[in-house]
Every structure is written in structure tokens, then in C-alpha cells.
């Protein structure tokens, strides 16, 4: 595993740097010729014509009234997040297709078989166990976001579930409500960077991991080192543990991806838009 991370991490970083440089290029490029200016205009067109078209949003996706500053912004912050550039679309579509096949040919049949053999109750235990195990990721992210109350609650949940829930198999703390409402504790480093103000950079699809962005990829690398299962020795047991977590998680969500795919005319676009908007919402929860 160490060798793999040593190779993978720099590779991911290099890719990212290239990616963000590429994205920055697109943003800062100034049109030099009229023809270029024209093509820039058509690229900007959708949001502008939408504006002219008069579809104004009164609320954002959570029901928050949008304050329209300068009378020009009719797009919600979530819309802006969904407009994250996708300069590597062809590349991303290829991995999207790969993940699609991976799901239908491998993950789904395995998860289906698994869920017919193992009843729901034990599968929930397994899910609780892995969720409890991911505590370092949530704690670190919440601390870095300055959400100390949520971090404290998450810590007491972790201690409670580990000590009294058979090492996290049972979620004994889920019924306990907090005195004051706390922000969502389902945070990771990618969301933390976003919370700090970092843009998505660009949209990316990774094999096995699925939709992501430049920002979330950096976050994922960090999360990777905060995940206890990463440090299982030898490396193939670590991979097996993570794979088992994944299959177990999928056994609860069979049909979700199918529904999205069935309802959409361009599944790649639907998933991209959905991913970016969901992440944006999670960031602000």
C-alpha cells in the first residue's frame, strides 16, 4: 500500500496541477481576435440568454431567498457550482462509461448476491461499523471548518458507538438529539476546502471512485490518509476492506443509479449536474 500511495499521490497531484492550470487558462484567456471574441461569447451564451429569457429564481435549492445584487445575478450559488468547467469531458465520459460497466457487470451482481445472502440487519451493522471508522475524516474536517460544536458531538458519538455499540456495529447514539442544532457532521476534506472558499476547479471522473472535481480529488487524497482502513497491512487486505465497505454500501442503494440513468437523456450530464449540486448542498448543510 505504501508503495502504491507513494506512486499514486504525486501522480494525482501532478494531474491536478495540470488540470487547474488548464482551467485557469480557460478563465483568464483574453480574446485577441474578433473571431475568438465571438466564440467566447457563444460559450457564455447559456446563462446570458437565460437572463434575457427572464427565468428568475426567487429561492435557491434550500428555500433561501436570493438577494439579487446589481440586478444581474439570477443564478443561485448552486447554479454557479453546477457550471464547474469540464475541459476533459471526453476523458471523463470514458471513465463514466467504465464505471457504468463496473457497476452493472461487477458491483451490482455482487451486491445483489450479497444482499440475498445477508439480511438487512447485519448489513446495517457493517455500514455503521465503517461509518464509525471514518470518524477521523469527519472530525478533522469539522475542526478545520471551525465547527467545534459539531466536532464535539461527532466525538461523543464515536466514543459512545465504539464503547457501547460493539465497536461501532450498533449506532446507539443516533436517537440522541443535540440540545442546540448543529451543522451536518457528514463532512470531508473536499467539502472543507469548499467551505474555505475553494472552487471545484474542474469536474473529473475517476475510475472506481466516480464523479469528483479537482478540489474534491485533493480532499480525497487527504481523506485517504485519514481513513483507518488505509493502514491495514498488507495492502490487499486494506483494498479488500474498502471494497467490502463499498459493496455493502451499494447493497442499500441498488436501483438508485438505474433510476437516474433511466430518467435522463444524457446520463453523464445528469450525474455531473447532480454531483456538483449535491456537493454544494452538503458543503452548506
Amino acid at each position, binding site marked *: 500500500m505504501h508503495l502504491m500511495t507513494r506512486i499514486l499521490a504525486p501522480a494525482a497531484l501532478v494531474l491536478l496541477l495540470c488540470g487547474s492550470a488548464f482551467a485557469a487558462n480557460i478563465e483568464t484567456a483574453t480574446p485577441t481576435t474578433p473571431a475568438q471574441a465571438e466564440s467566447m461569447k457563444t460559450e457564455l*451564451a*447559456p446563462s446570458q*440568454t*437565460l437572463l*434575457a*429569457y427572464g*427565468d428568475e429564481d*426567487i*429561492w435557491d*435549492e*434550500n*428555500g433561501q*431567498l436570493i438577494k439579487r445584487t446589481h440586478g444581474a445575478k439570477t443564478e443561485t450559488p*448552486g*447554479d454557479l457550482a*453546477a457550471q464547474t468547467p469540464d475541459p476533459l469531458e471526453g476523458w471523463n465520459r470514458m471513465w*463514466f*462509461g467504465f464505471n*457504468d*460497466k463496473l457497476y*452493472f457487470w461487477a458491483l451490482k451482481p455482487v451486491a445483489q448476491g450479497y444482499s440475498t445472502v445477508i439480511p438487512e440487519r447485519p448489513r*446495517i451493522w457493517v455500514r455503521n461499523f465503517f461509518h464509525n471508522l471514518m470518524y477521523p475524516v469527519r472530525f478533522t474536517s469539522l475542526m478545520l471548518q471551525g465547527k467545534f460544536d459539531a466536532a464535539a458531538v461527532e466525538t461523543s458519538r464515536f466514543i459512545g458507538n465504539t464503547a457501547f455499540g460493539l465497536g461501532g456495529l450498533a449506532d446507539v447514539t443516533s436517537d440522541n438529539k443535540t440540545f442546540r442544532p448543529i451543522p451536518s457532521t457528514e463532512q470531508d476534506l473536499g467539502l472543507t476546502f469548499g467551505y474555505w472558499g475553494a472552487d471545484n476547479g474542474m469536474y473529473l471522473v475517476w475510475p472506481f471512485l466516480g464523479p469528483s472535481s479537482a478540489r474534491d480529488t485533493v480532499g480525497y487524497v487527504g481523506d485517504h490518509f485519514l481513513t483507518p482502513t488505509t493502514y491495514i497491512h498488507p495492502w490487499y487486505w486494506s483494498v479488500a476492506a474498502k471494497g467490502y465497505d463499498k459493496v455493502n454500501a451499494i447493497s442499500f442503494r441498488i*436501483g438508485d443509479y*438505474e*433510476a437516474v*440513468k*433511466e*430518467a*435522463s*437523456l*444524457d*446520463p453523464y*450530464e*445528469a450525474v*455531473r*449536474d*447532480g454531483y456538483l*449540486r*449535491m456537493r*454544494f*448542498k*452538503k458543503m452548506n448543510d
Partner: protein
Amino acid sequence: MKKLTNILGALALVVCFASVALAGEPQDRLKAGIDNVITILSDAGLKAANKRTERQNKLRAVADTFFDWRELSRRAAAENWAKFSPKQQEDFVTTFSELLQKTYIRKLEKYNNEKVNYLKEQIEGDQAFINTQVQMKDKSIPINYIMIKREKWLVYDVFVEGVSLVKNYRTQFAKILSKDSPEELLQRMKDKIKAIDNGQNVDDKVGG
């Protein structure tokens, strides 16, 4: 301590009922619509496999009473709407709403007595935003609705976990219409509906 929680609980109950009592017209309309859907979904007599079409037709009839398909389609097509001919617009509304109903009714068929909580209602002019939460076994999913006032209040957009139905389709339509003609888009939607009707598997196709 126990007393305090009791008082708090009572207070919370009062607040809940107060918000129910204060619900305005849009929320009442939405609730009536959703309740109708739930009634059909929980009707044991319609659960049999041979009653499937009947149930679907009933669900569609109910959905038609509180969804504004035209407004929804217009907003999903966005700037391309103006480029459609009036006939294409009509065709688009019919086809798109059929596609949505087909695919969403399928999702609803998994309904298992989940409870819908109405959290908040806001009205601005002729539009209303309603926050709801669907209580599942192990988690709750936020589902929000935007309604517009016609003769009655009608839903024109649904947000599931922060993802707008209209806007999700808007990006897809924009993408397709940047390459293909409106006719081709319509054909594509019709093919999709036909594939769903024939019970074709989504597994084999990536492009859609």
C-alpha cells in the same frame, strides 16, 4: 430533567400543530396532491401485478392535477424554448411530462409508508416554496417544491437533496440541442419512453 424534556416536547408539538394550522393555500394544495398519491400507493387492491397499468394511470391523473407540466417544460428547455415552433412546444410538453411520469412513477412504486413532513412554506407574489422531508427508515431526504399560481397552485420544480429537476434536465437539453435539432431531441425522448414501455434494460446502454 425529565420534566424539562416533557415541556420541551409539548412545546415542540404546539409548534408543529401551529405550523400545520398556519399552512397557506399552496402547501394545502401540495399536501392534498401528495396525500392522493400516497392513497393510491398504499391501496392494497392496486398492488397486484395485473393492476399495474391501472395504478400508473391513476397516479398520472393525480400528478396532472398539481403539476404545471408546461411551466416545468418551458423552464427546462430554457433559452431553447423560443426556438421551438408552437407545435414542437406542445409536443415537447407532452413527451417530457410523459417521460417524467414514467420514470418517477417507477420510483414511487417502491413506496413503503414513508412519512412526509411539511417543514416550511414561503410565498412571494405568485410563487411559493415549500420545504418537505421524507422520513425513510434510516434517514430523511429533503424534498422541496416550487409552485406557481395559475387558477390553482401548481408545482413546477422539485428539489431532491439540492438537485433541481428542472435544472438537471436543462443542462441535458442544452447539451443535446447544442448539437441536434429539436426534432431529434423529441425523437430521442420518444425512443426512451418506448424503451421503458418495452421494459428494456438500462444496463446495456451508456449514452442513453
